[in-house]
């Protein structure tokens, strides 16, 4: 990957440079976060000309390494005001890598009010006016179909929906998956950044692209085989995720009393089986038609946690139907209907909003009296209003923190204005430390302590006790920052957490590709350095330790059934980043 592409939307200039020295050894999150910290003014307005949006494949993307096709997208977040790295599937990452593109940067912003499409091919990068057909309320499904028809079946597409055009803080960037459906760089409003730069879509045409060079192909193949075996032989990454998707978590979090429900007032519900992974699996199987129990979000995924969820007639409704979305609408908002939740998921993908942020905002809006509790039809209608956007649509699209403020709520589940997802920090204490301290704002994927607390993979900690959680949250965040830099899907963690050979194989693949001799110590250092860079940006943007706190209500409101409160002291929380 030897090309570093900069598209300046102020001047229309396009530069295709050699990769700057300091970025040669970096990929994915390490690259996007270093770049944002180097070049984005930390105090800039996220929607102004000084913010920059960067797309970067991971170190292993484009190779035959299983599950290596994840992409990192970085910028300053309009939702949190912090640095942001968003990770997504789809075909983009592998295509960028095969085209030799280390990173694509979009900077500046045009003075006129038109939207543009950036088209990147092997020998050219061009800025074109966006076709009117995909603007002004056109959903992502239709827009992707239109652009595919126009530019060819195999192009990669990154696109913002109506929410991105309107620069709403929950707007995501959607990516075409192998079948022309949608994966999203969801959290933190990066779609609003792209929309502010008047870029409706980026098209990648990889015609003529070669393969990714591998320094030591034999070694690479051998390591990839060991790695694939580790993934396939673990019951979670080998079978569980494919069968039930991530939604299998509904029942275990519910049983453990850690499923935040009715805007974080209960830790357990009775209607869990209406929205569980077991029910999703049975429904997809029974309905048949377009339904698929398991599906990969990019070629080369062997874990396949995604699925196609069909309607009663067997027609496709949505894919990538994740636990966090189902939890937020099903438990936190109390909508007892998996089909309605599926339609809401589709609508959010189509409008281009983060389905975690907006779904939690829906639950908060119910608490605030904007919507009736548990009313799926009303929620779906309100979500669709984000595309217009009506005032209610704008409020929901503003995210959970905005809804909480507008409704005058005390109980607003956010950290750094990003909605807290599906695991209650009072009864899954480790994950609370990640929410509080990650530079991303509340984000379970930044250090998935649920694993050792509840799932007992890669650790065994009592979820109701503080013992060991600080060290655990630290090491999970460091490890995750490293994995996010490789292009690997985070779910490889389940395969390698308890398999030293699997973990070593991951490092061996990087070494074989680049002719390096990294050790696991180097990988930890990479993770630490990524987090330090991100913290540095946040500090210069005005964030202090005082922002690394959970909302106060967690300290005062005990969560049934275990009746626990959040009891880490500020000093203890600050220990997480003591490295």
């Amino acid at each position, binding site marked *: 990957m030897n090309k570093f592409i900069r598209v300046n939307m102020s001047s229309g200039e396009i530069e295709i440079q050699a990769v700057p020295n300091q970025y040669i050894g970096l990929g994915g999150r390490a690259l996007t976060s270093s770049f944002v910290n180097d070049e984005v003014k930390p105090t800039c307005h996220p929607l102004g000309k000084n913010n920059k949006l960067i797309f970067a494949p991971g170190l292993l993307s484009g190779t035959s390494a299983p599950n290596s096709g994840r992409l990192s997208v970085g910028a300053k977040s309009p939702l949190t005001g912090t640095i942001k790295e968003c990770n997504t599937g789809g075909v983009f990452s592998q295509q960028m890598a095969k085209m030799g593109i280390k990173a694509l940067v979009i900077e500046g912003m045009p003075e006129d009010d038109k939207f543009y499409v950036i088209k990147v091919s092997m020998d050219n990068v061009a800025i074109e006016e966006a076709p009117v057909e995909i603007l002004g309320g056109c959903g992502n499904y239709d827009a992707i179909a239109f652009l595919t028809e126009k530019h060819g079946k195999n192009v990669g597409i990154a696109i913002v929906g109506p929410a991105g055009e309107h620069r709403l803080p929950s707007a995501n960037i959607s990516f075409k998956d192998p079948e022309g459906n949608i994966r999203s760089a969801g959290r933190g409003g990066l779609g609003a950044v792209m929309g502010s730069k008047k870029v409706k879509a980026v098209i990648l045409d990889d015609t003529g692209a070669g393969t990714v060079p591998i320094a030591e192909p034999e070694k690479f193949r051998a390591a990839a085989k060991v790695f694939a075996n580790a993934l396939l032989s*673990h*019951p*979670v*990454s080998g079978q*569980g*995720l494919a*069968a*039930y*998707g*991530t*939604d*299998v*978590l509904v*029942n*275990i979090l519910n*049983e*453990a*009393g850690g499923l935040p429900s009715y805007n974080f007032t209960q830790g*357990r519900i009775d209607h869990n*089986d209406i929205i569980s*992974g*077991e029910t999703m699996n049975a429904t997809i199987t029974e309905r048949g038609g377009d339904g698929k129990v398991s599906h990969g979000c990019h070629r080369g995924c062997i874990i396949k*946690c995604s699925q196609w969820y069909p309607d009663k007639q067997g027609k496709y409704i949505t894919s990538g139907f994740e*636990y966090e979305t189902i939890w937020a609408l099903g438990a936190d908002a109390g909508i007892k209907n998996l089909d309605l939740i599926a339609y809401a998921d589709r609508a959010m993908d189509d409008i281009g909003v983060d389905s975690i942020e907006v779904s939690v905002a829906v639950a908060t809006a119910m608490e605030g009296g904007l919507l009736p509790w548990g009313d799926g039809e009303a929620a779906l209608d309100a979500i669709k209003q984000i595309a217009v956007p009506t005032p209610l649509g704008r409020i929901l699209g503003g995210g959970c923190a905005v809804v909480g403020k507008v409704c005058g709520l005390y109980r607003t589940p956010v950290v750094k204005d990003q909605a807290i997802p599906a695991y209650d920090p009072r009864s899954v204490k480790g994950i609370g430390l990640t929410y509080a301290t990650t530079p991303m704002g509340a984000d*379970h*994927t930044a250090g*998935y302590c*649920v*694993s050792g607390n509840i*799932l*007992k*993979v890669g650790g065994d900690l*009592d*979820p*109701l006790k503080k013992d060991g959680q600080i060290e655990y949250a630290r090491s999970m965040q460091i490890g995750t920052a490293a994995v996010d830099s490789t292009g690997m899907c*985070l*779910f490889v963690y*389940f395969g390698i957490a308890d398999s030293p050979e699997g973990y070593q194989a991951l490092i061996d693949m990087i070494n074989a590709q680049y002719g390096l001799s990294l050790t696991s110590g180097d990988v930890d250092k990479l993770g630490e350095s990524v987090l330090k860079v991100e913290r540095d940006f946040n500090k210069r943007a005005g964030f202090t330790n005082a922002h690394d706190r959970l909302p106060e209500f967690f300290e005062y409101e005990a969560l049934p*059934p*275990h009746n626990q409160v959040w009891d880490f002291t500020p000093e203890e929380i600050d220990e997480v980043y003591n490295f």
Partner: protein
Amino acid sequence: MKIKVKLFATLREKREKEMDLEIHETTTPGDILDLLGIPQSEVAIIMINGRHSKLNASLTENDTLAFFPAVGGG
């Protein structure tokens, strides 16, 4: 004494997902797996009343005992 047993994910295949059982005071979660014909190797997580537990834990009247295979997500 009476307890409630819940099964999840693959453990539900060809079994009831929830049942009330009459057991002796000395019965352990391991014994109940034997009774239900579930190999211990298929069970990764045991919870009693929402708290992680072990195969040889003791049970009391009205406990809810839950068995899970290895599950994950995120």
